[in-house]
């Protein structure tokens, strides 16, 4: 087993453990922090795959952005310090069943797919190429979805401002 494989297993285990902890903890702030570590682990896996740019994006957007937003919204609820009530047994059963179903489905798909081993170089994942493809409007270009997504984000931002301003004026 090479060093990178060992590192991969360690990081994956961390991702899974923190993911599980973020689900099972009953303190909402801790859940957010565990989720944070889980997401950092995913960034680590990207690095192992030599996807530096994606890893940095993962850290910047998910960890530095989304988690900070989640933590801020937890702060604003004023209940961040309380323990959440224990869930009902019925709910635990249903949730466990659903999770098991999801797991089985994923594993089923996973084992039925034939992964082809290849020595071919994958996609060019350098920042330069990503930028080029993002702004390319010929073949395999992403300028169209990129613009649509930015438009959607702009709409979401404007919506947020409208909602926030209305509450302030109430």
């Amino acid at each position, binding site marked *: 087993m090479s060093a990178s494989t060992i590192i991969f297993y360690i990081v994956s285990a961390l991702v899974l453990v923190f993911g599980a902890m973020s689900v099972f903890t009953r*303190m909402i702030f801790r859940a957010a922090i565990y989720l944070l570590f889980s997401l950092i682990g995913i960034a680590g896996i990207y690095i192992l795959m030599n996807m530096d740019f994606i890893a940095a994006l993962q850290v910047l957007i998910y960890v530095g*952005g989304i988690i900070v937003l989640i933590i801020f919204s937890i702060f604003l609820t004023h209940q961040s310090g309380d323990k959440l009530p224990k869930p009902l047994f019925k709910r635990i059963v249903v949730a466990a069943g659903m999770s098991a179903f999801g797991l089985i489905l994923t594993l089923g798909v996973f084992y039925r797919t034939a992964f082809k081993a290849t020595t071919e170089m994958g996609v060019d994942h350098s920042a330069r190429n990503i930028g080029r493809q993002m702004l390319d409007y010929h073949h395999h270009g992403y300028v169209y979805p990129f613009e649509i997504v930015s438009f959607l984000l702009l709409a979401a931002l404007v919506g947020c401002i409208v909602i926030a301003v209305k509450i302030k004026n109430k």
Partner: protein
Amino acid sequence: MQLSISLLEITRAIDSWLNSAFHPHVAYGIELVLAGVAVILLVVAMAILMVYAERKLAGFMQMRLGPMRVGKWGSMQAVADVMKLLLKECLVPTNSDKLMFRVAPFVVTIVSFMTLVPIAFAKGIQLWDINIGVFYITAVSSLSVIGILMAGWSSNNKYSLLGAMRSGAQIVSYELSGGLALIVVVMMSGTLSISGIVQAQADGWWVIKGHIPVIIAFVTFIITSTAELNRAPFDLAEAESELTAGYHTEYSGMQFAMFFLSEYTNMFVLSMVAATVFLGGWMPFHLAGLDGLNHFMDYIPGIVWFFGKTFFILFLIVWFRWTFPRLRIDQLLKLEWKYLLPVSIINVLFAAFIALMGWYL
């Protein structure tokens, strides 16, 4: 894995010796540990030096002597402070979230050390020449806010919480302009990697070569990095006259020292980034066409250039701290969203135009 530790001859010698003596994997592990220790030692030494320098500078600016008692000219003062902090008890408030409270200083410190990785200290002395160096630093440094939020929340202290909220709002906002300021140089150099950016300044630093847009970006970057560091005049997160000590009110002993150390580390990293990106990193002062001058400048080693520039920017930051009063939170956010961000965006467009036309000096 492109985690290639490419230090100079000494490091190559160590590398070959380790590889001959141990199994390659073990040697690799030892190298990682050595590199980590080297960086930590460097940062701690710099922090001690900087604490002393800052106190002496503050003393000079305030017509007093600064530390004078410990050692000659008070030179051992910072060491004595470190000893004191190491020996103090780390108190944990009763009703705090103890796990988060203890983890927070580590998060902050680890994040600040991680940002040191892609810095090029001199020609070839770089831990990891990642091809997205500048982006990596921006991404990782955005993590430090999490540690601050953890610290503020878990202390179960209202001042801490207010400080953490302030810090969060501040760092998240100021990251935007800081990033845009870096983008200007990235566009002109055509690369995100630190070594690439330094190489692009072989015939002149960007702040000279890139004239107006880079100067605007440089000023913006200094302002935003001061803000991201929570240092005066943007030290609202730990405004001692308003929030006693902000997010680290409840911390003591080594836990506090870790916040302190990470603040200084972040200060070094941002100064180093500014020195690298705008002032040419370890590149000597070169002007296109003046071969005599360029040749003379080459005699000064790159590491001296690099640390000289870093300390110049550090001096600027220290100077700000001992001169300016503090802003108010709404003024702080107004400065970012109403002035710096629009200016930065227009500056990026302007710089893109200049980069396309190739109007460098």
